[in-house]
Each structure stands twice: as structure tokens, then as C-alpha cells.
């Protein structure tokens, strides 16, 4: 009933994430210029506080794919992926990794508490938390890559391109994400903890075209590509 190979890895222990400082600075809107000493000090403070309260965790599963006219079926599950963008993303892939990662509600609480006392800190802590969950996702991808020894596409998340966010409830259930890592889903398919990510990564034994390789992040199919502050367009 299950595909031959099926993995699930969790990281549950409270531990530090290696947060990319350049990413934090980019999220804060700085481009060429670097922030001054005072802002850098607040970033340090926020990062320290965040590392204290986070409980980073991720989980993933490797599942077979069946490409059909109606979309891509994820084998052994109730999940079908529909849309041109996801089809293009997963073409040539016979398996995928479904993943969910979160830095936990501790981050939400910290940011909320900063909002009540100092908006500068809240804004900066939010950027640090965003960079933290990105770094955690990178760790998950490394883990997936090490375990599967396959060629990986970059992380494709529901709601991106024409893949509907409506698959989120089933995707999270397939991963048993609430129990495994504590991710909940609200009425509008918004995940809480807020700094949580779900993603679909294509796996192939053959090399993939460069645009889809895991080291590339693409703005190409993003709905916000022409107006996002961080876009390459």
C-alpha cells in the first residue's frame, strides 16, 4: 500500500538554528546599504531572545508520484496536485518529498509581546523569525537530499503559482503535522505558528534542468513577482 520507501524525520529538541544574518537584513528592506550599529544590536538582541523561545521542528515524507491528465497523484495518500506550474515543477520526477517545518508558537508570542512594547523590535524579530524558518527548511532539504541521494527541485509551496492553497489541510494531514510538529490550520488555510512552511520537492534520479534545481530560488512563477520588494523582476 505504501511506496517502497517512506521516510519521516523529526527534529524535536530545542536547539539553535543557524540564522543567515544577510537574509535578515534583506528582509528588513536594506539593499546595498548595511544597517547601523544600533539596528545591528537590536538584531542581536532579537535573535538571542528568539533562540531562547523557539522549538524548531520539521517532518517529511517521501512518496511516489503518478502523473495523470487530472493532475499528479501522490501515491498512498488522498492528495492530488493540480495546476500547470506544479506539473512543470514535478515533470520528470517519480517521487516527491512533502515537508512541513515550523519554529513554534514561541516565536509568535515573542513578536506579539514586542508589538506591545516596541514596534522596532517587533519588526526586526519578525524578520529574524522569517530567516529562521527559511534556515530550518534548508536543513530539512539537506536531510532529504542526504537520505535520498537524488536530484531535488527547489521547495514549492501551496498557494504559489496556480497550485491552490486548498490542498493545505490534506497535505498537513498526510504529514500528521499537528501531532508531529505542532502546526495548526485556521479557517482561511493560514498556518499557526505563523512561521511555518509546507512544501513539495520533486525527486529524480536524473539531473533536472537548472531552473528547477534545489539551489535555485525562483521568482519566475510567483504571483507577486512584479511588485514584491525582494523580487528579481
Amino acid at each position, binding site marked *: 500500500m505504501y511506496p517502497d*520507501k*517512506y521516510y519521516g524525520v523529526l527534529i524535536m529538541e530545542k536547539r539553535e538554528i543557524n540564522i543567515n544574518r544577510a537574509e535578515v537584513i534583506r528582509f528588513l528592506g536594506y539593499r546595498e546599504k548595511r544597517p547601523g550599529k544600533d539596528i545591528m544590536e537590536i538584531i542581536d538582541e532579537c535573535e538571542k531572545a528568539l533562540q531562547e523561545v523557539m522549538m524548531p521542528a520539521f517532518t517529511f515524507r517521501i512518496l511516489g508520484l503518478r502523473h495523470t491528465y487530472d493532475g499528479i497523484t501522490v501515491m498512498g*495518500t488522498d492528495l492530488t496536485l493540480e495546476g500547470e506550474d506544479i506539473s512543470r515543477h514535478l515533470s520528470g520526477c517519480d517521487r516527491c518529498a512533502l515537508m512541513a517545518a515550523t519554529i513554534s508558537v514561541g516565536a509568535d508570542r515573542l513578536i506579539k509581546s514586542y508589538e506591545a512594547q516596541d514596534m522596532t523590535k517587533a519588526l526586526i524579530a519578525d524578520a529574524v523569525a522569517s530567516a529562521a524558518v527559511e534556515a530550518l527548511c534548508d536543513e530539512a532539504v539537506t536531510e532529504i537530499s542526504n537520505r535520498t541521494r537524488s536530484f531535488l527541485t527547489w521547495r514549492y509551496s501551496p498557494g504559489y503559482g496556480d497550485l491552490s492553497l486548498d490542498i493545505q489541510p490534506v497535505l498537513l494531514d498526510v504529514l500528521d503535522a499537528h501531532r508531529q510538529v505542532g502546526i495548526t490550520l485556521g479557517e482561511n488555510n493560514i498556518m499557526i505558528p505563523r512561521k511555518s512552511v509546507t512544501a513539495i520537492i520533486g525527486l529524480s534520479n536524473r539531473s533536472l534542468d537548472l531552473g528547477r534545481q534545489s539551489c535555485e530560488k525562483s521568482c519566475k512563477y510567483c504571483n507577486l513577482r512584479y511588485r514584491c520588494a525582494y523580487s528579481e523582476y
Partner: protein
Amino acid sequence: MTGKLKTLFDKKQIIILDGAMGTMLQQKGLKMGELPEKLNLDRPEWLIDIHKQYINAGSDIVYTNTFGANRLKLKRCGCSVEETVRAAVKNARAAVEGTDTLVALDIGPIGQMLEPTGTLSFEEAYDIIKEQIIAGSEADLIVFETMSDLYELKAGVLAAKENSDLPIICTLTFENNLRTFTGTSISSSALTLESLGIDAIGVNCSLGPKELYPIVEEMSKWTNLPLVVKPNAGLPDPVTNEYDCSPEEFTELVKAFIPLGVKFIGGCCGTSPEFIRQVCEMTSGASYAPQHNEIPSAVCCATNTVVIDQPRIIGERINPTGKKRFKEALLAGDIDYILSQAIEQTDAGADILDVNVGLPSIDEKAMMIRAVKELQGVVDVPLQIDSTIPEVLEAALRIYNGKPIVNSVNGEEKSLSAVLPLVKKYGAAVVGLTLDENGIPKKAEERFAIAKRILDRALAIGIRKEDVYIDCLTLTASAEQENVYETVKAVEMVKTKLGLRTVLGVSNISFGLPNRELVNCNFLQMALTKGLDLPIMNPNITSMTGAVRAYKLLMNIDVNSVDFISHYSGQEDKPKQVSGEKTSMDLPSAVASGLKAECRSITKELLKTTEPMEIVNTMLIPALDRAGAEFEKGKLFLPQLIQTASASQVCFEVIKEHILATGEKTVSKGKIILATVKGDIHDIGKNIVKVLLENYGYDVLDLGRDVDCQLVVDEAIKNEVPLVGLSALMTTTLGSMETTVKLLKEQYPECKIMVGGAVVTPDYAEQIGADYYANDAKESVDIARKVFGN
């Protein structure tokens, strides 16, 4: 506990639960991501078979297949809660027929996060679980399992107790840092749930029996209830997803739990009937070892337990009495002000916060609910619910997440019979005031007698002695000097003769005297030496908090002076605070540099000679304009812009206090409503806009996030605001923005609307009929200036 479980309890030493349900269903063909609860209707024979396998293996209790059978999850398959749960109970009943095995109604987490971190309200959670409880009324007991949010569990326990007479078992899921994913601690869950009156408590899932041992060991220190353990079959192998414990190892490991007071044993993920069979065999001769721990006096929020084994500071500042600025905040519904007061106190060293929002002209109950809900989202300390109205106390106790203190009951019959039952029902601790219908007795002996009366009444209805704290009442030294020492004497009597914890509002002692701080500080020290545990005081006054810390050092409570040194070492080297001192800097440059302390002192100084409006128009706004212009040019970045705005906010706060004190004209340039639309919880953008608008002199009525569409309209009309700002961050919530705009245009067409947020575009703004699109916070100020013409 009554009925069948009681019989089972008395008959059997160790009670055997069942093993995994999900794993068994997947073996029968359930696909991942499918709802297992639907199978109750589609495949009853599968369920009956699984239950029977566990019954044959020796389970005394089987759980129904209803883990996710709530209305939110079932929506996906179109089944009703009633038909699903009834079918599940019927399947289990069919399986247990002819045996002694009992049926437990299984309830797992709802799957949505409760407020204030999430959007699901406590009341809604209660309602959802209530529906499950009623549908499952044919079960023999109720089990909540795999819970990670204490708040949700409290809603569940209340729903169970108020809608059924069945016994209740709660098991939570902890990770190996001894917390659940929501941060709930072991001590907090044990204290809170035992006080709420459940029948057994424990842990399930997440880890294997080996890893769960320290968790159960910790739990056994905080409760004398029978414990429940339902571990996974070890840890899953990352490659095969097979669990690493064999039934033999599992059985050997769970044996170790019995001396901790474990009475219920079963299995979770990865376990099978074989595990249960072996556990059943192993325990057949074992005895239940009930625990007789002394559970200390303690209160808690979900994440933090405060044990009253040494002086703990209760912060008194959330209280409008004698505070004009606080009253104004209550009248305006300015919750942020209350939150800032809370954080200031906990930063200063408060262990517990008193919350009093009583003001004749407001709806105290509604305000109390809102304040408690918001406070528990941002502070990490237990709360003391302070009101004279039992109805307000009850409303707050209901929605409090943890074990709070009730302030207060007194020796009057009316108070005793109204307040103590609430304390018992909601599992709180209570402050007992030593006064009655005859007022406050003068002599210590008389106050002691009232304390004794309160204690006896509390004990009679089942409140633990450890949960009664007595306030011997401070009288002012200026009016009743001869009785000051009677209070101190009464504290000592209550402490030594009744063995109760004591609480005392310290600050009243000096009312009407000069140098109040000196008097307060000395009175505090006198009382501490005589046994005061819980001073209610202003923790922001450093000498007061310092007195408590020094007392703990000198009494060898703060062993090796660790706490004291961490607070005070190196302090001598730091330059003195600038507040109150003259500085050569001018206000615009202090604002531009984001120096809050300087902003405060310069503004105070300026107000002696300058009109408030002039400060706003000639100094604050130009400084902000300059920052805004640089931000637009890309010379300044968002964190710096917000820093400038926050510094300017400090100036506004000083000006506001000045105006309240002198009764001068306000500096308001007009009122604006801001809201993050229904369904959306991302409100950092809206909050940035708010800070900036406030600093340009606008009054912002912040309706928060996830705001009902019609509520925006109602508030706009009620407050006659000319401008409403709406924010949305997710594409899925743009619909709510459109609806809100539509409703506003229909019911209040003269009101202008500006919209913004990550996914909003100028085209979209126009399409849904908004008047303005704001690209960033700076633009929202430009729009406000245009609308208000200032």
C-alpha cells in the same frame, strides 16, 4: 468518580488501555490524509474488529475512533458530528458486548490554534467540544488525548463537566524538553487540570516509554491523581518509519512507571494488540502505588508556574484607581496601554500581575475578558483576577489559561457564598480579606478570627488549604498609626498559627505622607520578616523590588545570591539615567536618533514653557516628515523609520499625561479606524501604520486582527470616523476586505477607505471600491492628511 469506571477502579489495580488506532486502520487500507473518522460509518466492521483485537489482548478500556470527530475536521467529508460519534460509540459498544471492557469517548485536538495566538475563540472551542461530548453520551468515560494546548484542554474539561457526568481523563503530549509544542509545562498542566476536578492525568504519544519516563516522573511531583501512560512504540526509524521498541522491550520499560503512581497503561503510535497483551500479562500481579505528595501552594499560566515558597511580587499597576491615564485608556478601549503596563512590571520583577479594570462607566465584564485574553498572549506570569463583582470574576476565571488567584473573598456571608464556589469550580487560589459586615477589626486577634472563618468555609467546599491566601489589610499610617503594627502582627499569626500564605497591599500604608517610598519600603521589610509571602506593590519602584530581592538574599532563600547578583552586578559602573536631567540635545534630533529616554525628559522640560500643540507641530511632525522623506528616497530603512516613530510616541505619551493632568485641549487631528480583515492574523503591517499615524497626531481606534466585517462598519458609524484603514496579508482573506468595503459603502458612504497589505494592489483597491491604496505606512499618513485636510 462514579459508575462503571469506579467499579473498575476498585476491582483492578492497574487498568489496561488499548493501543494505536491509526496504525491499525492504515493496515486495513486507510490512505494518508484521509479522515479515519469517516470509517465509523463506511466500515463499521473494521472498527469492531480492531476493538475486539484489543479487548482480546486484555484492554479494560477501548477508545472510540473519534480523535478528530469535531465539526471543523468533519466538514471535509460532509459527515455530521452526531452521526459520526454515535456510530463510533455504537461500534465500540458492539465490540465490548459480553465483556467487562469500558468504552471511552476519545477526543483529540481540534486542529486550530486558540486565541490570542490563533483565531479560534475559547468559547467556540468549548462549543465544538460540547457537541462531541453530547453526541458521545453513551460512552462510559471521556478521554482527551494528544493535547498540547492547555487552554483548549480547559475548554474541553469545562465542556465535559457542564454537559455530562462521565469521568474525565486527560493526557497531553510533551516533547523531550518537558514542554508541549505550545509551551505548556508539566507543572502547569497538572496544577490546572487537577484543580478543575478531572479523574486521571497523564501523557501519550510523541515519544517512547524510555523518553517519557522523566516526563511522567516530573508530573508525579505535581499531582496525586492516578497517572496515565500511553507511549509510542519507541522512536520511529527515519528510513523505514518503523518504531524501535519490540513488545518485550516496551513492556519492560512501562513496568518502571508503576511506582510513580501510574494506574492506566496503554500504547500509542506503532503499538499493536501484541504490545497490549504483553503489558496485560506483566501487570497482572502489580499494585497501583497511589502518591501522597505535598503539592505546594502554587499558581500558574500555561507556560510558567510560580510556587509560593518564598516572597513573590504581585504587580499592582493594572488598576485604574487614582490613575487618570489608565482610566482614559479603559474608556478608549486602549488595550495596548494595559499591555505595556503589564510588560513594564514583569520586566521590573513582578512574579504575578493583579488585573483590575473596574470603572463605573464601562462594561467591566467585557473589558476583563478582553484584558485577560490579551494579557495571557504577551506575558509569561500568572494573573490575579481582581473585581468586586462575582459575575466578572467568573467570566475571567472561565477564560483564564492556567490556575489564577481570585482577589478577593471576605468574611461576609454574602461574599463567602458567592465567591468560594467559583474558586472551587474553576480551580483557582483565593485571597481572603480579613473584614466582614462590621468592617475591618482593629485588633490582630479579630482579623485572625475572620481568616480562620474564611479558611474553614473554603475547606468545607473542597478548596485546599494551600490555595487560601490571607490579606490582613494595610491601614494608612497617617490616619491610624496606632494600628499599623496590628496588621503586621496579624500576618504573623495567620502565617504561624493557620499555616496559610499571606498577601498584603503595601502601598496604602503611606497615603497622605511625604516620602511615601521610604515608608512603603520599611513597611514592606517589616511585613516580610513577619511572614508576608505576596506583597502587592509597584514593582517599577526599584527600591521596593530591591527590598524583596535583598530580603531573599539575607534569608538565604536566594542561595549564593545568584538572583541578586544577576540583577545588580556592574550597576555602579553604568551612567545614571538621563530622565529628569537636563540635556543639550533638542527634541527633533532626539526623535530622529530614536532616543526614548531623552525624548521623555526633553518633552517634560518643554511642556513647562511650550504649548502641547506647538511641540507636536513644530518639532515632532517635522522630525517625522524628514525621516519619512529619507525613507522614500531609500536613505532610511523601515526599522529606522519605526524607531523614530517609537521615540516620538514616547513624547506623545508624555504630552497626553500632561493634558490629562492640566485639562488642556487635546492634540488630536482626527480619529481613524484600523483593522486587519476577518480571517487574517498577520497584523504587524497594520501596527506599523498605527504607530506612524499616532505620531502624526491622529487618534487611532485599533480594532485588532481577524475583525468581523460588520464590526468595522458599526465602530466607524459609532465613532463617526471619516477614515477607515483595512489591511490584508493573504490572498485568501482578500474576500473579507472586499466585503468590509462593500458594507461600509452601503451603510456609511461618507466614510473614506484606504487599503493596503502585501497582496493588495492599486488595481485591486480600485476594483473593490476603496478610495485609497497605501503602498506603505508613510503613504497612509499622506492619505490621512488629505482626508482630514491637515
